[in-house]
């Protein structure tokens, strides 16, 4: 990479063995994911599917939050735009899944670029407010155009084929395999963006925006690209959700759904894209498995989870943060030390 590196490149110890390990891990993970239908019962597949979709949404969010340092609460808006864009293609023209994915990506990217027109001017808490407004605008749009979107009843999505005339997705396992493949492709593309010089400038944006501008970079342009990429990836996840759940509805635009990927990032931290999937699996397990037994109220449990996560793991769960959290708890129990 030519040009200054802003000190964002980490010093990496990479010899041949480490390189092999780094390449082997994702491949092994992918093999396990593809073999999963033979290993776990159907309901496990459903859970992992939800976790993959949420994980991809969180990874898309992390482009903006973790790499660029801009907090968004309204990423559910991009997700829903993608879901509706592809669902309309599936319903009205019986398009193939790949066409739907393309349509969702383009729609999400365009929507992200439009949002960036306003968002590039604001930062911090004001950006948080703006993303909340974005979410609300999309929710209002879904309600206003009830004839197209189906409103709160939602839109039932017919099962597409993978390519036009090939690849039946009517069985759960087939949809799961398609999902794993599609998520892997999207993640590969996202890593391509993040590892490129452009991705480095995302990080520089977070670390020192003024310096980046002084060096002659187009800060506004970089922000626009970040929103476009992130919006496109979130919309891609939305399309996968439409294919997988065969339903898109106005309830997808809720605060709760939109805050979920933020919680994922809070749990696993904001470094890299792959950890988001681990966090998503934990969240899905808690949301769908624990909530009925603990307290019996999903939103209450999530709220408690948010509060606890914010207090104990402000930078994501790691060995260090666990030790610090334990220290803080001990401090609370013992009281103030003199």
């Amino acid at each position, binding site marked *: 990479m030519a040009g200054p590196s802003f000190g964002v490149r980490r010093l990496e110890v990479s010899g041949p063995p480490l390189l092999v390990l780094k390449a082997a891990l994702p491949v092994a993970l992918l093999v396990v994911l593809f073999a999963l239908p033979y290993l776990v019962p159907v309901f496990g597949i459903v859970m992992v599917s939800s976790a993959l979709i949420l994980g991809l949404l969180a990874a898309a969010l992390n482009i903006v*939050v973790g790499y660029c340092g801009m*907090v968004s*609460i309204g990423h559910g808006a991009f997700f829903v735009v993608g879901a509706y864009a592809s669902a309309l293609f599936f319903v009205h023209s019986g398009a193939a899944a790949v066409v739907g994915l393309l349509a969702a990506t383009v729609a999400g990217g365009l929507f992200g670029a439009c949002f960036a027109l*306003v968002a590039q*001017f*604001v*930062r*911090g*808490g*004001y950006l*948080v*407010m*703006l993303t*909340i*407004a974005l979410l*609300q*605008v999309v929710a*209002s749009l879904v309600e*206003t155009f009830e004839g197209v979107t189906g409103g709160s009843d939602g839109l039932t999505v017919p099962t597409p084929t993978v390519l036009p005339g090939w690849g039946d997705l009517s069985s759960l396992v087939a949809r799961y395999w398609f999902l794993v493949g599609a998520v892997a492709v999207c993640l590969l593309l996202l890593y391509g963006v993040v590892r490129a010089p452009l991705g480095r400038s995302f990080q520089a944006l977070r670390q020192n925006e003024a310096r980046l501008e002084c060096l002659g970079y187009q800060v506004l342009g970089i922000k626009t690209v970040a929103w476009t990429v992130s919006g496109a990836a979130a919309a891609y996840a939305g399309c996968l959700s439409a294919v997988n759940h065969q339903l898109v509805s106005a309830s997808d635009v809720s*605060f*709760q759904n939109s*805050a979920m990927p*933020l*919680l994922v*990032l*809070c749990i696993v931290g*904001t470094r890299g894209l792959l950890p988001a999937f681990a966090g998503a699996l934990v969240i899905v397990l808690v949301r769908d498995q624990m909530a009925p037994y603990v307290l019996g*109220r999903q*939103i*209450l449990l*999530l*709220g*408690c*989870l*948010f*509060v606890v*996560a*914010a*207090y104990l793991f*402000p*930078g994501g769960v790691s060995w260090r943060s666990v030790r610090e959290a334990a220290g803080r708890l001990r401090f609370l129990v013992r009281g103030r030390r003199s």
Partner: protein
Amino acid sequence: MSVLALSMFNGLALGVLLFLVATGLSVTYGLMGVLNLAHGALVMMGVYLTFALVSQHISFGFALLAVSVAGCLLGMGMSGALKPLVRASELTQALFTLGVAFIVIDVIHAVFGTGFHSVRPPGFLDQSIDLFGASYPAYRLAVLVFGALVAAAVTIGFERSTFGAVLRAAVQDRDMVEISGINVRRMFTVAFVLGTGLAFLGGALAAPILSAGPGLDHQMLLMSLVIVVVGGLGSVRGALCGALLVGQVQTVGVAFADELAPYLLFATMGIFLVLKPSGLFGYASARTAH
């Protein structure tokens, strides 16, 4: 009275209520840079508490007082909980306050159910009076007068008293005020307590106008956020102007362009963010805010 005049009058009453609701959010955000996303849920709690008290045949006046005091107490607890997060990242702050909002909303739904509850105004105001040749609900008029009095008191207190002067200084330059030997964290607590108390009072006054139901928290949070953007961070005068503007946009907009009404609010917000990011009377600009 024409439709326009009537909806403008309604907008005035709504604006005064919104000022009570939003001013605390604006000042505390300006002071410590912690955006309280649970604000809407707190206002909603005030509305439901009023409903609970009034349905127990407790007089409306006493309910107003009790709800305001409850708001102050809650504000004290909330400001204490927020203090460790003042230096934390925005992600953490947003997550914490959202979590509190979820907890409050779900507890409310568990206790009161998800239906709509209407609150009757006190007996002597539960009627229509003649206003410039049109009948107008007496309660709204009373809210307008009472709310305007409270709003005037708050604005004068913020602009003229010593405490208000120190608060304004702390919003502009917190470090400088701290160096002068003033405990800004304690001021944050006081501002938060007063702000939440006012928000609860606003919710209680609004209870007979807006019925208690789900979705109220989002509505209140969004309108408060728009007011903060329009008025400028940490400015009571700005919050007053912003609230009156939002009140007009909401009522006149609904009266004349029903389909566009939800977008008008955000259009206002977007216009201010792009053209005047510091708001009407704000010191800090949205481009540099924290």
